[in-house]
């Protein structure tokens, strides 16, 4: 059996999970406020002088990027992965003390990061491209957050090995399996920024190195910078594959293909970073082409996901009496905000995937590189597929953890639909402005070269941003209400889906990680070593840092 028997986590474990999630969302709240300011600035409404929180557009944008995609994601994921690992294995986590150590290491780092950003000492945007230089506290803080994720890896591995000893011959429960694939992939992926931050950026910002090699630094960043998006996405996939089917009254369509998709992400997420560097001189065209092809390959497990998840959701709609080609869609439990949020997240993710293919396409990329097309793309992926799914998960997870009812189901439904429409408009506006050449990461409202044809798309995007902000407010009010105001003594089920064909025979390599980690190492070596070797051999630590912000 690959299913999961109901199990209650210990209260102390639940508290740890809640703290991770809570701190993550607190940062998202600030991040969203910054997003609103950006959108309005593009449409000619400059609130930076009115809102005393940040000094200028780029400080706000640094906060928006770091809080939303580095802090919120990592904290939510840490809590969620711990939860599904413990719950899936049905046993206490062996290293609970280590769990709290992890929390405090990450949070000590987070305090440094927050301080540097809010004091305008790290307005370098979330990519931290050298030779733009931030205060050392910012780099040290981010490293501590990454160290926290490694501790998480240790805890999860310990729990998994203990479970395997206790349950010889059993298949790893699916939700835990997904969590392990996610964290193993991340363990490999994080090597790039670890080398970059510890080897280059920290000593350089402390004045211990005379300068930095910008291309090397950037290349190491993108070694991690692409796979990190799968670190955000795979936890959402855990919910879509292994939990959502249960929420809609259905079953997982195909267990072997679900496992295969997760496993494929381990080798395929990594050797693709050059697709962020297509326009960098100093990286060979041949290797860019190889990374471009592999980027197409990593599209395959996402296509598998589209099929399996949709087919699984369909089993639910049919079980609830849906007939015909599309009749099952109306029968899905749309009155459940957790379901609605996740289904809408999937719809927009489809467009996120399509726009991603444009970015990935080597030559087509030329037209959209560093334009607003790119944020138009990733607000659909990380900004919706991930963020809206995490919100949907929160609608059952926080009630489960606190034993309280969701404060307002109605507000939650409004929240999901507003996010969907708001993001559709904002993303459409951004993609449109981007195709007309509007650069990203730019205070366009103050740019002397502002083109008149950018006005309409940017207004559309700003309007979408306002809807999104309202959606965000609804979410946070509901979260606070659930944590402190809603009635207690309510049990909320943890949704865990069973496969359609229980216990079907399956090749052993679909329940093992070592072969996949080995393949990854070989593939990454082939895709990266020649370039990294050359860059290290030619390394010149000569370019001084600059803090023009």
């Amino acid at each position, binding site marked *: 059996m690959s299913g999961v028997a109901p199990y209650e986590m210990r209260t102390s474990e639940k508290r740890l999970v809640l703290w991770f999630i809570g701190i993550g969302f607190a940062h998202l709240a600030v991040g969203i406020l910054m997003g609103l300011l950006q959108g309005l600035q593009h449409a000619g409404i400059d609130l930076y002088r009115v809102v005393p929180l940040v000094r*200028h557009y*780029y400080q706000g944008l640094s906060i928006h990027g770091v809080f939303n995609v580095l802090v919120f994601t990592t904290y939510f994921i840490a809590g969620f992965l711990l939860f599904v690992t413990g719950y899936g294995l049905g046993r206490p986590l062996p290293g609970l003390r280590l769990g709290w150590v992890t929390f405090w290491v990450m949070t000590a780092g987070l305090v440094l990061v927050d301080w540097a950003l809010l004091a305008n000492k790290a307005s370098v*945007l979330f990519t931290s*491209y050298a*030779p*733009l230089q931030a205060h050392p506290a910012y780099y040290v803080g981010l490293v501590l957050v990454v160290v926290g994720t490694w501790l998480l890896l240790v805890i999860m591995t310990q729990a998994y090995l203990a479970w395997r000893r206790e349950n010889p011959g059993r298949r790893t429960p699916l939700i835990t399996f997904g969590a392990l694939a996610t964290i193993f992939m991340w363990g490999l992926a994080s090597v790039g920024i670890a080398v970059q931050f510890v080897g280059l950026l920290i000593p350089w910002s402390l004045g211990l190195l005379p300068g930095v090699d*910008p*291309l090397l630094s950037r290349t190491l960043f993108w070694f991690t910078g692409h796979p990190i998006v799968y670190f955000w996405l795979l936890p959402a996939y855990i919910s879509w594959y292994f939990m959502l089917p249960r929420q809609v009254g259905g079953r997982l*369509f*195909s267990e*072997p*293909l679900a496992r295969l998709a997760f496993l494929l992400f381990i080798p395929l997420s990594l050797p693709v970073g050059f697709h962020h*560097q*297509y*326009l*960098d*001189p*100093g*990286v*060979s*065209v*041949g290797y*860019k*082409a190889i990374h*471009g*092809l592999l980027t*197409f*390959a990593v*599209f*395959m497990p996402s*296509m*598998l996901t589209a*099929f399996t998840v949709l*087919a699984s959701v369909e089993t639910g709609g049919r079980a609830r009496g849906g007939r015909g080609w599309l009749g099952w869609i109306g029968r899905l439990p749309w009155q459940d905000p957790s379901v609605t949020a996740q289904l809408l997240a999937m719809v927009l993710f489809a467009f996120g995937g399509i726009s991603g293919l444009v970015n990935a*396409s*080597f*030559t087509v*990329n*030329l*037209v959209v*590189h*560093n*334009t607003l097309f790119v944020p138009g793309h990733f607000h659909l992926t990380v900004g919706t597929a991930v963020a809206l799914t995490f919100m949907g998960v929160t609608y059952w997870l926080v009630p489960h953890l606190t034993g309280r009812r969701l404060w307002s189901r109605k507000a939650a439904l409004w929240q999901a639909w507003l996010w969907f429409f708001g993001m559709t408009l904002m993303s459409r506006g951004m993609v449109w402005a981007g195709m007309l*050449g509007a*650069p*990203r*990461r*730019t*205070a366009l409202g*103050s*740019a*002397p*070269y502002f083109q008149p044809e950018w006005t309409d798309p940017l207004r559309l995007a700003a309007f979408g941003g306002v809807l999104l902000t309202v959606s965000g407010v609804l979410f946070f009010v509901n979260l606070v209400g659930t944590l402190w105001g809603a009635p207690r003594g309510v049990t909320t089920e943890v949704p865990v889906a069973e496969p359609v064909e229980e216990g*079907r025979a399956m*090749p052993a390599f679909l329940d093992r990680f070592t072969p996949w980690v080995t393949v990854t190492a070989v593939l990454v070596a082939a895709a990266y070593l020649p370039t990294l070797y050359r860059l290290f051999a030619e390394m*010149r630590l*000569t*370019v001084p840092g600059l803090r*023009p*912000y």
Partner: protein
Amino acid sequence: MHTHPLERFWIYLSAGLLVVFAFAVAFSSLVLGIEIPGIEDQAVPAAAAGEYPPNQGWIRELAPGRYEVNMMTRVWTFDPGEIRVPRGSTVTFYLHSADLLHGFRIQGTTVSLMAIPGQVGKVTYTFTTPGEYPFVCHEYCGVGHHLMSGRVIVEGN
């Protein structure tokens, strides 16, 4: 491993689509000749010296209708900030950065490159339509980033 027939169809369809896209990309690159930068061009412009030092901005005419531009970027200017060429001119840009990462994108063209300190980017473009082509920095480079721009003026005859 057993798979559902529809699922198998979907897998083949997805893979087929990706193969088509890959061919389209290869075609645009190999046949249409749309360039992206590599390591092959890490040299400064041929025989640049004297009046045309490699570490300064300049424009020079190689032959009628053939130009070379040495483009220096630094916070928050392009040097040269204005480039005048007759219509039909083919211009090769060499892109340098004196301080931070910058970007170089000429609106309405396929010219787009990153400027990275220590690297030289190269791109060639033929301006067939007269008019004004603004170029902008498209990589964040500090509080004045949105001020960093210039223009190519293609003069008609």
